[in-house]
């Protein structure tokens, strides 16, 4: 469900160092059976180093492992989302929540009609960054990425025609927030990262009078998703 475009995993694949333990440790409570198996299968291949390199190269050139984005665009969107909602210790961000996977799956499904919007917007973003920084967005330093996003937000990126820079920013922001805070069934909000960040206990069946009139954070029941829960609603960062 939720491992496409996972930067951590890619780093492991590139380094040839992925282990079953590492895959299982990332969000253990949430990893569905099918995914856990595919992770094991991948690590059990035990291919020689040369084959690893070939696999890696293919992955980088054939469009990566997402449902919609090619690899460059995936990196761009992941970097953009992370600047919109940056992670920090104890504060899960867009990468922690796997926002990229949410947007990728949405564009291959419910938001299919926005594929052209994204393709064109990302090409304009690359053009803007090539002109301003002589590098694509995904390769900029964080401060430059922030400067670039601010320019889009305020409509100060003349390379944008359609979508406009502001429309592109607004859509990326909207979809990043959805990927942070929508139920994990849609591929983002991994390990309830977004809900833990803000203190939302998820799809609760109900609340009591004491819950409703409490002035403390809600910790009575675990965070609940449509398909799963974690053991405590207290923020674990």
């Amino acid at each position, binding site marked *: 469900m939720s491992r496409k475009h996972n930067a951590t995993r890619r780093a492991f694949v590139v380094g040839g160092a992925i282990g079953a333990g590492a895959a299982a440790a990332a969000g253990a409570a949430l990893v569905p059976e099918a995914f856990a198996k595919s992770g094991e299968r991948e690590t059990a291949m035990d291919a020689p180093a040369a084959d690893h390199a070939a696999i890696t190269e293919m992955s980088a050139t054939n469009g990566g492992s997402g449902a919609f984005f090619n690899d460059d665009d995936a990196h761009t969107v992941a970097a953009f989302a992370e*600047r*919109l*909602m*940056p992670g*920090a210790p104890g*504060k899960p*961000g867009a990468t922690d929540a796997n926002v990229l996977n949410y947007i990728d799956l949405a564009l291959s499904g*419910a938001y299919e*009609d926005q594929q052209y919007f994204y393709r064109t917007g990302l090409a304009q973003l690359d053009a803007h960054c090539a002109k301003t920084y002589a590098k694509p967005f995904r390769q900029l330093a964080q401060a430059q990425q*922030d400067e670039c*996003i601010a320019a889009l*937000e305020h409509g100060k990126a003349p390379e944008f025609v359609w979508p406009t820079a502001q429309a592109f920013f607004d859509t990326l*922001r909207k979809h990043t*927030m*959805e990927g*942070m*805070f*929508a*139920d994990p*069934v*849609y591929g983002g909000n991994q390990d309830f990262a*977004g*809900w833990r*960040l*803000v*203190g*939302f206990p*998820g*799809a*609760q*069946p*109900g*609340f*009591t*009078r004491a*819950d*409703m*009139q*409490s*002035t*403390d*954070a*809600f910790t009575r029941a675990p965070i609940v998703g*449509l398909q799963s829960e974690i053991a405590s609603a207290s923020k674990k960062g």
Partner: protein
Amino acid sequence: MSTEKTDVVIVGVGAAGGILAAELSKAGMKVVGLERGPRLKTEDFMAHDELRFFARQDLRPNIKRSPVTWRPNVNARAHPLQELDYGNEAGGGTVHYGSLSWRMHEDDFRVRTKTIERYGASAIPADSSLVDWPLSYAELEPFYDKAEYELGVSGKAGNLEGKKIEGGNIFEAPRKREYPLPPLIVDESGLLYEAGAKKLGLHPFPSPRAIISQPYHDRPGCTYCGFCQAFGCHVAAKSSILVTKLPEADATGNFKLITGAMCYRVNSDDSGKVTGVSYYGPDRSDNTIEADLVIVSPFIYDNTRLMLLSRTAKFPNGLANSSGHLGKHIMAHMMAGVFVTFDDRYVNNFMGPSAQKHTVDDYNADNFDHSGLGFIRGAQLSIGTPNLEGGPISATTIAPPPGTPRWGAAYRDFIARAYARHGAMVAQTENLPYADQTIDLDPDVRDAWGLPAPRVTYDWRRPNERARVDFVQKKLVEIGQAMGGVEVWPAPVSPAGAPGAHHEGGTRMGSDPKDSVVNKYGQTWDHHNLFLVGSSTYPTMGAGFNPTLTIEALAYMTADAIVNRYRKNPGQLL
């Protein structure tokens, strides 16, 4: 292609159509209901899924299949609205609404007369078509009562037969008896709002809602899950038409509901009678229903649109339009938001029914002196959740306080800190009717059935309306400060002029066929066996009150008139 015959056909089975379907079929009339969307079940609402139901608006009309376009004035190009705040299934908007259930104030029904009495005729903007309603509160009271008791509304009376009661709404019109159910539990944000408003000398109370606070009519009480406005209720505690009146209609054996049915024309003959309706089925089949009585009760855009689409050589300007007022006098509540955060407590406002939980009525309608203020009429002031929905996706649409960016580490820290510690207040402001605020057929945009989309021409930014929004938004800021908020800030109100919530008008009721489309029963002046029922008939908004209970009361009144009078002499003008 099929043709069938029936006594009554009802187009749109929501707040108005569902009540008429039940009441007429119980009286022995054969009723066919046409519904554009599906008929869902309570089990369909088990998924507490904010993305699907709030962000993607799963229970609303699809904006691509059923576009509604908007432009601020006749010189601008219309574009499809990106959100359509009404229903798209059997039960209509009552399936997903916040369930606010208001009776209008007594004087709301004679607003023109009362305004002139108190402030003089010059207080009414020259271009406003403000009028009295063709009926009184006293006429409607028994039907308000019936709606509250048959459907199930929770609240606290503030005026029992003239006796004012603290803790209820002391400004409300006199009611004959208490609400059938006690108020819903007040949450922490409501308690803070209550205390803050009282400090300012105001009169707060828990909002009346069609959500049952205790078991009622074989349905369980509310669980306070919070997935309320935008969602269907997973335990059927929301007193929607889907779980109240449609089962009643089913039980008669006289009611048939056809879903996936897109009505595109009301058929008429040259005598002025209507003969039935035509509709496309889900398989694109073209079907006709012949009926003695046609009731049209979809959301307001489609009332006007259907009359225009039904034009004939005899009625070239559309059905029911001899007055020329069809599609005019469109109104909407402008929603002026104010947010407040706390640093000494959690508020957790994602709990409980999410819309407009606790209310102050002191600045609504003519409940306060407008002398020297530069505007008339007011707003219902309430606290609840942003967008009336309390999940975190909804919270990310809040414009953060001045100085806080919309993204980046500072935004992340804001949302992390404020989400469970904020209150969202809203002033639901009445707008006056103006003849040049209209619905017509869009010349360019068509819906999935190839029919011209309804086009709304509307700009709320008139002097009277701007002054009102500014005034009530400041009042909310004062309440937020009195609540002990550390940050209190107003949100921008529709800067481009687009209409807000609860669109009303287009087929206004009146007492003169020359300046109205229907009489107080929704009966069209031009075709006595054609009724238009719903908030499209409102001649004014009444107040800053959500319209649904009044729609339901009017539907009961129309049903009563049809069953007890019209049926004995079909074709008579009521």
